[in-house]
């Protein structure tokens, strides 16, 4: 029987699904707190990949033999499964498999942006965008002459919505925002931003890389025009990302990658393209990864996204409370009861890279650096920060190990 949405997670049982969590680093049990960078992979997903290569590995769409038929059906149905997972009622036609979130962003920037943007158009981003969105639109702005503006954040790491309403005007063509900040943990009001964008005839692209793995997401409730996320942050494999687009928008766009698979009729002079979503999946696609991503959706749904969200929320709150006990620790972003499952911070006396190296001796894996948000770090007034990010298998005891490691670093550098 499926657990109720309010039941706490049985982390011990969940951890048994993730072989890598049994690892020791120099004799100490691994504490993996770098989930915003990539999540670990459960047995059912690993098994799905192995089963594909062991029993029905074949190229898709074109072969008429048994293996190709099996692979094609599984690969195509994976699109339907992902559509269902994020509430895209248009099914597979609204789901393009890409390499990652970055490629999904570039697909829209090139296929839509280069064709539609020009001088006088504006692109609105936020100060907390990941480089995947920030660099992509900044460079498309340079190519097209479109102006790029950034919605400010306030001192608690929330978006300044008044500033958003000021920046988004009838000249705005695209609003591209992170759903959850990978650095601050801020959960942005993307449905409200979608309303503002649509009021001015602009499209909104929501970067869901840090939301889809951790909370129920309904792209239609948000009314996102485009939405993207990565498989490897949600218990899936690397090498597969997802672009959701409203059907009529995807239909109106020219392909991004030309080549095999995405064509119907080719002559030396002309080519007609495949239907959605295949016209955006040029070349042999991410077959095993796509099928495994669907298995990851099954795995997460079986446990329940509401329960996972609740669990991570409690961990983030606990980590926030423990870290803010210390006067020499700066925590970035909103209060503990209002953030995604990650906490970025700095210990006054120890550079984040030194801290991460020392934590590694405690077998605690965290991220240290700019987390692909260099301009945001400039805004925060620091070059680097340490980030602990949580997932369904993490425990309070692991956060205690983090705090012990920080104590050790503090003593060493005292």
């Amino acid at each position, binding site marked *: 029987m499926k657990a109720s949405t309010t039941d706490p997670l049985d982390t011990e049982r969940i951890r048994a699904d993730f072989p890598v969590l049994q690892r020791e*680093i*120099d004799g100490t049990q691994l504490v993996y707190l770098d989930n915003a960078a990539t999540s670990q992979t459960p047995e059912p997903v690993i098994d799905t990949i192995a089963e594909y290569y062991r029993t029905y590995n074949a190229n898709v769409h074109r072969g008429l033999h048994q293996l190709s038929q099996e692979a094609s059906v599984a690969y195509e149905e994976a699109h339907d499964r992902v559509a269902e997972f994020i509430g895209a009622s248009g099914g597979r036609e609204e789901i393009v498999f890409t390499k990652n979130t970055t490629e999904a962003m570039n697909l829209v920037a090139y296929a839509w942006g280069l064709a539609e943007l020009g001088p006088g158009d504006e692109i609105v981003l936020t100060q907390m965008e990941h480089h995947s969105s920030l660099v992509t639109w900044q460079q498309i702005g340079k190519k097209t002459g479109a102006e790029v503006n950034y919605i400010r954040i306030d001192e608690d790491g929330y978006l300044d919505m008044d500033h958003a309403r000021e920046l988004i005007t009838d000249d705005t063509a695209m609003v591209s925002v992170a759903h959850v900040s990978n650095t601050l943990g801020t959960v942005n009001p993307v449905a409200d931003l979608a309303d503002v964008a649509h009021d001015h005839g602009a499209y909104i692209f929501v970067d869901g890389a840090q939301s889809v793995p951790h909370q129920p997401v309904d792209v239609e409730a948000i009314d996102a025009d485009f939405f993207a996320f990565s498989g490897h942050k949600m218990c899936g494999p690397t090498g597969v990302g997802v672009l959701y687009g409203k059907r009529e928008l995807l239909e109106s766009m020219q392909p991004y990658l030309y080549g095999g698979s995405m064509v119907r009729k080719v002559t030396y002079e002309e080519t007609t393209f495949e239907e959605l979503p295949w016209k955006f999946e040029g070349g042999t696609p991410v077959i095993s990864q796509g099928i495994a991503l669907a298995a990851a959706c099954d795995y997460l749904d079986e446990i329940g996204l509401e329960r996972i969200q609740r669990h991570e929320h409690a961990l983030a709150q606990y980590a926030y409370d423990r870290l803010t006990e210390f006067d020499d620790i700066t925590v970035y972003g909103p209060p503990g009861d209002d953030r995604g499952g990650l906490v970025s911070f700095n210990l006054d006396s*120890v*550079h*984040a*890279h*030194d801290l991460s*190296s*020392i*934590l*590694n*001796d405690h077998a605690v894996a965290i991220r240290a*650096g*700019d987390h692909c948000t*260099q301009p945001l*770090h400039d805004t925060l007034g*620091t*070059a*680097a920060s340490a980030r602990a990010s949580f997932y369904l298998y993490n425990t309070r005891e692991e956060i205690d190990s983090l705090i012990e490691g920080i104590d050790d670093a503090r003593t*060493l*550098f005292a």
Partner: protein
Amino acid sequence: MGLGSDMYRQQILDHYKNPRNYGELEDPTFSHTGENPTCGDTIRIDIVLADDEETIERVAFSGDGCAISQASASLLTEQLRGMTLTELHELDRDDVIDMLGVEISPMRVKCAVLAEKVAQDGAKIHTGEFEIDTTQTE
């Protein structure tokens, strides 16, 4: 214990907390700055050459960043005094890591070699061998 705390032996912590030759020189013969953009480590090195235009008479560094980058800058300045530019150019990354006296994990080597690269690039710019604004190590 793994690489991490081995990296933070007394010498490195001492040079990080009490950097030698820290500051800026008045009228340096040349001065150059470098950074690791992804870490935010920055190092500026000022050098005064003797009248032979070859021997390093005085040296100072300033900057900000992790213990490895700052301690190696401090240690390097102690070595540089009295050294010729030719000898400076002969230094390689192994020399710097030997100077630190600890094993440096692969991801941190760029922190360790930043100061050396800044000094060498600064000297090359001074002698007209090439022209760049900022040194970067990756």
